């Protein structure tokens, strides 16, 4: 039992513990948005730790190439998938537990069309720029 195999087993158990914390979050958190924040770590970090630990059991060069590809793809895409689901949850008006203020949906008929894509055009006739629209939180 060489030390690299021991390190691999420790990494696999740590990755599985990341999954266990995500499961605890999905059971105990009060609303959908906090649950999404619990899932994001499991998707990226948990899979990466488990796969690297599995590689260290019997490391070969072709497996190393595949693991580099898996780690890069997983770190790049898992956050995008999680954020896409969170965006859909916001746009479908999922209920938030005890909201203090809601910047995304305040006062807009549909939050998707309300997001300004560019700065307001300056008013040249009066010589000063138009004030930005201020939300109710200010």
């Amino acid at each position: 039992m060489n030390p690299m195999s021991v390190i691999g087993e420790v990494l696999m158990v740590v990755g599985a513990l990341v999954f266990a914390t995500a499961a605890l979050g999905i059971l105990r958190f009060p609303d959908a948005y906090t649950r999404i924040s619990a899932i994001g770590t499991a998707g990226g970090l948990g899979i990466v730790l488990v796969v690297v630990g599995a590689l260290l059991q019997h490391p070969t060069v072709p497996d190393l190439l595949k693991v580099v590809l898996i780690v890069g793809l997983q770190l790049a895409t898992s956050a995008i998938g999680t954020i896409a689901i969170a965006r859909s949850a916001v746009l479908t008006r999922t209920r938030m537990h005890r909201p203090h203020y809601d910047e995304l949906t305040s006062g807009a008929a549909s939050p998707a069309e309300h997001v300004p894509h560019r700065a307001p055009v300056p008013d040249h006739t009066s010589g000063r720029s138009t004030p930005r629209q201020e939300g109710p939180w200010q």
Partner: protein
Amino acid sequence: MTGATIGIALIALACLAATFRMLRGPSEADRAIAGDLLLFGIVGLLTLYGVLVASPYTFDLVLVAALVGFLGALSLARALMRGRR
């Protein structure tokens, strides 16, 4: 081997929690999130089972599963929006 067995037990517990939330979840977003976690858990279980049986094709399968998992997460987001973007 013991590390892989402990990991399989922990990830199986996570998959059970995700299944519970998918069946129970008060909103549709909760069900979509549970589906996402279940998908990641299946990928982790696949990896650890490949270590346990010493299969030479483990990382090929995990690579394909990671790619399909990304498409699955985007499809869940689209389904939650009823097909709108």
